[in-house]
């Protein structure tokens, strides 16, 4: 009797969280599909998708989301990799620097957008610094709707600044799993070190790089508040459109259609990454 109770116990302990997640993830996913594919009068329809694809902002939202993704994710990986390798060389005081680099983890995308708004706004601190240094004669309108590269750069910088911390923690944890013998000397730079990093450390770090890449790409599709804080409605993105259709236009069908699109993209990204990265792994082993 007692042995049997022991046997069932782990499942009893897991059941509440599994049930909760199922309730909060599976049910709304069905609800999203219903809202997106079922017409108001009932019956299957593609009219919401047609309306979404035909919307004036859809093309821009799609392009901007992909552009941000393509710029932000690689930048974050490089920056986080530099920080992680540096921290992993275990120089004196590395723990302090790791903490500093991890601080943006505590910042929401909304707050990050506002922090960088103080930098990039017309009479903000970047223009002030440039003007004081005599580089410019009058403020540059970084965030004007006519200055697309300006807005784009500001968002890329703000979002890279914020979410690099997450990638960093994933990579540092991955590096900790690699036996110390592989690193030996603490000196990080010089040809030998670089070659060792490329040929030894990076291949061993692949699983971490892979999960960082997947997590960051998925989250890049949700980019929204940082864009709103810096650009307002001047730069439509997919998640932002979902929000606007729900909260602004009170159209839960179109909002849910955007949600379905984002969920679909998430699934595609995961499968593609696992395929591509997984295949290469098989090649390496051969």
């Amino acid at each position: 009797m007692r042995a049997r109770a022991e046997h069932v116990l782990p499942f009893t302990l897991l059941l509440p969280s599994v049930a909760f997640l199922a309730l909060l993830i599976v049910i709304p996913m069905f609800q999203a599909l219903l809202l997106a594919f079922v017409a108001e009068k009932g019956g299957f329809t593609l009219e919401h998708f047609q309306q979404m694809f035909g919307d004036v902002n859809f093309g821009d939202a799609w392009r901007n989301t992909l552009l941000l993704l393509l710029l932000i994710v690689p930048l974050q990986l490089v920056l986080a990799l530099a920080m992680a390798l540096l921290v992993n060389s275990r120089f004196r005081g590395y723990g302090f620097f790791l903490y500093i680099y991890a601080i943006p983890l505590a910042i929401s995308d909304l707050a990050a957008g506002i922090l960088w708004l103080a930098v990039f706004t017309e009479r903000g601190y970047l223009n002030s610094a440039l003007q004081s240094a005599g580089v410019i004669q009058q403020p540059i309108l970084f965030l004007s709707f006519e200055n697309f590269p300006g807005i784009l750069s500001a968002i890329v910088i703000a979002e890279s600044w914020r979410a690099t911390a997450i990638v960093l923690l994933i990579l540092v944890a991955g590096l900790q799993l690699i036996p110390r013998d592989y690193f030996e000397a603490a000196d990080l730079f010089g040809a030998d070190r670089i070659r060792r990093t490329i040929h030894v450390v990076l291949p061993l770090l692949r699983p971490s790089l892979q999960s960082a890449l997947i997590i960051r790409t998925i989250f890049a599709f949700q980019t929204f508040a940082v864009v709103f804080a810096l650009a307002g409605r001047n730069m439509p993105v997919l998640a932002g459109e979902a929000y606007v259709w729900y909260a602004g236009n009170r159209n839960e069908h179109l909002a849910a259609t955007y949600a379905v699109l984002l969920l679909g993209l998430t699934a595609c990204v995961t499968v593609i990454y696992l395929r591509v990265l997984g295949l290469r792994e098989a090649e390496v082993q051969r």
Partner: protein
Amino acid sequence: MNARVLDRTLIYGIAVLLAVWVLIPFYIIAISAFTPQAKIFDYPKPLIPTTFSTETMQFFVDARGVIPSVLNSVLVAVFTIVFGLALGTPAGYALARFHFRGREAFQVIVLATKMFPIAILSIPLAVTFLQLGLYDNLVSVALVHTAMALPFIILVTGGVFVAVSHELEEAAQTLGCSRWGAFLRVALPLALPGLAAAAIFTFVVSWNEVFAATILTLRTRTLPAQVLAGLGTSPLGFKFAGGLFMALPAVVFIFMIRRYLINLWGSR
């Protein structure tokens, strides 16, 4: 010798440079939020402020809806901590103590949830909550935040209970404690610092969450939802003060749990 000195200088140089990159926006938002309203449009502004005033912060705190939204944010975070720990602690304990069939499957579920874009689901959830009469309710926001934080809570509590020796619990049981009693009197007190860290991280997740909070509320706004809804209309000073106000508690809390940060994102 010279090469080593050069090397070390290079390492510290890069480390400091990266630290400056991370810290500069905090400095800028702090001096912006403590610039008096009248001086916010001064140009060019000095990088070392000549005036210090709490007027802008005061203006933000006094603005309509801000104090209630802060209270709402705290309430949602507290609900999320209660729900999250109640659900996640048993799961973490099971992962730490038992080898059972389906253990790996459960770990995959946890991992997948960590990556899943749960915030996006708040749109269909809003429709469901509306039907259930739970819309614009802090509990419903807390439920979504719980789903977001739960995988992290499970991972952290799992790690915490692994570190608490199961032999101590067994000893307590041989001395007459029930299994539950042994957990309550031995494992739980030893795990408390780790559970506190999980609670703090949960607070940060909830305090920072924007999308679901905005979608699921109309009048009972949390602080980020309040700030986001006002982005288009509020003056710059309000935004700066709001940015600092949202960022500061989270930064302090992350400092408190810095030892656990690797566990949160690290374990694949």
